[in-house]
């Protein structure tokens, strides 16, 4: 009983403190390593976890992490179940019509095809991609047959078990997959999207302003580039490279 009272008191106290500050709920997918994933302790981890925590610290916000299915990640943002999306989401005009994006925190990175053999047909064969991504749209444009899956992991599994000839995704996601040894990159890298940013409700410009300022300060002092190199390797595109920019 004592424990219960203590727990309630602690809860009330922490709730009181949180009210004073402002809690921002960050929605992520938790299935797109190394951007975001659920680690073996069952917590959100990855590049975006570290980035999000740092951005919240700089913007002096109290942040909490929430995971949500990719399919319903935008609807749940606009209906107010969380306040921002930080889930490796590329900035596109179609999405921008529904939500507001922060400035990009990852420069426009290429997407790439991976397959189990060199001669995989990425132009006319079956290509796996995650539903509702810029890569899925790209496959439709190339004329290949699109095979869609709700999670990124399933797109890779489809290639391994022969269901699809190749998978297309952000190259940063595929690099560790290819490093496992049983798959290789095929074809040319494809430049897609305008970089990756956080998404906010259009009616929430204050939060966007705060986060934008935090992203700018991380770009200015080089911590963002360090973080990108830490999670995506030394070859990763960073801010200040020729292609970088908004």
């Amino acid at each position, binding site marked *: 009983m004592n424990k219960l009272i203590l727990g309630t008191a602690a809860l009330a106290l922490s709730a009181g403190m949180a009210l004073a500050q402002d809690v921002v709920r960050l929605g992520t997918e938790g*299935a797109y390593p190394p951007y975001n994933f659920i680690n073996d302790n069952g917590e959100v981890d990855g590049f975006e976890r570290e980035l999000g925590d740092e951005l919240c610290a700089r913007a002096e916000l109290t942040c909490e992490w929430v995971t949500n299915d990719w399919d319903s990640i935008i609807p749940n943002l606009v209906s107010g179940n969380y306040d921002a999306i930080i889930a490796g989401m590329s900035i596109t005009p179609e999405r921008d019509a529904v939500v507001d994006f922060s400035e990009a925190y990852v420069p426009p990175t290429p997407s790439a095809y991976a397959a189990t053999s060199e001669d995989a047909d990425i132009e006319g064969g079956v290509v796996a991609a995650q539903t509702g991504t810029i890569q899925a749209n790209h496959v439709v444009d190339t004329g290949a047959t699109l095979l869609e899956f709700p999670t990124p992991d399933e797109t890779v599994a489809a290639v391994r078990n022969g269901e699809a000839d190749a998978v297309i995704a952000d190259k940063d996601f595929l690099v560790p997959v290819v490093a496992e040894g049983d798959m290789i990159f095929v074809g040319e890298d494809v430049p897609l999207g305008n970089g990756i940013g956080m998404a906010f409700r259009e*009616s929430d410009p204050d939060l966007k302003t705060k986060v934008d300022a935090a992203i700018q300060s991380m770009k200015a002092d080089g911590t963002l580039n360090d973080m990108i190199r830490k999670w995506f390797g030394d070859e990763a595109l960073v801010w200040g490279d020729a292609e970088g920019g908004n």
Partner: protein
Amino acid sequence: MSVPAASAMFASCADPGTLDGLSWLACYLTSGKHMAFYAAFGTVLLLLAITAPVALLFGFGGAMAARSRFWPLQWLGRAYTAMVRGVPDIVFFLFVPIALDQGIEWLRHQVKCPDWTEPVRRGSDFVVCAEAKLPLSTSAQWVHESYGFALAVLAFAVVFGAFAANVLYGAMRAVPRAQIETAEAYGMTPRQSFWRILVPQMWVYALPGLSNLWMILIKATPLLFLLGVEDIVYWARELGGSKTQIYDYPHPDWRLYYFLGLLVFYLALTRVSEAVLGRVTVRLSRGQATLAGESQRKATQ
């Protein structure tokens, strides 16, 4: 409010990269993520334990309404069963909780923030004042999870209640007319004959239909993830997916094994349900004017 980091269960699990064989497996199966998976079994069982009686209550209400001689009530009962049974579950599950959630928040918004001048609907955004949010965005994560769970129970109960209403409606009509006539001949009011004669006897007719519903309900829990409640199928898919070196315990695609585990769980649950339902049928058949009741009577003579 910070959640203590779920630490490894054994001290030897601190550095999984150095482990192999059985000790690796022991550490792997006791990781924080696996603990969440095991807890999800409890979530599913809890959901079933709460939803089944609530759905039965909805069903009983629906059946009583459909039988009512007061026509608006009868119309309501019939409309409920017809509409809910006709709409695909997945549509219902996306619609009811979101509509309910927004409806409640809108009402709270009207009460708590009367001075708010900006519109609630702005384009695709649904914006209410911070005090009207349910749960408050400052609430602990478990409050959010309990709220999602409660919405899930309600959605399940509404859907399965409609099916149960139809089953119970049929069962009420299956009780032999002679039983009711006898009750009336003894001078019972319609209310008395309903509660004392009809209801105790109808269950044996309802049981086959209700047991079907129970079996379907058991298997419907993956719909939970639509509402953000992480059930066992979600965790099996998440844990089974191939893991690269970025994870503490990298492994190839093991979904097959996880789904096999789920298969065993669901089959065991089905077996237990069948045993329990069998006993209930025997108990309910006692003294009934049915074939099963009659053979029981002969056996004890």
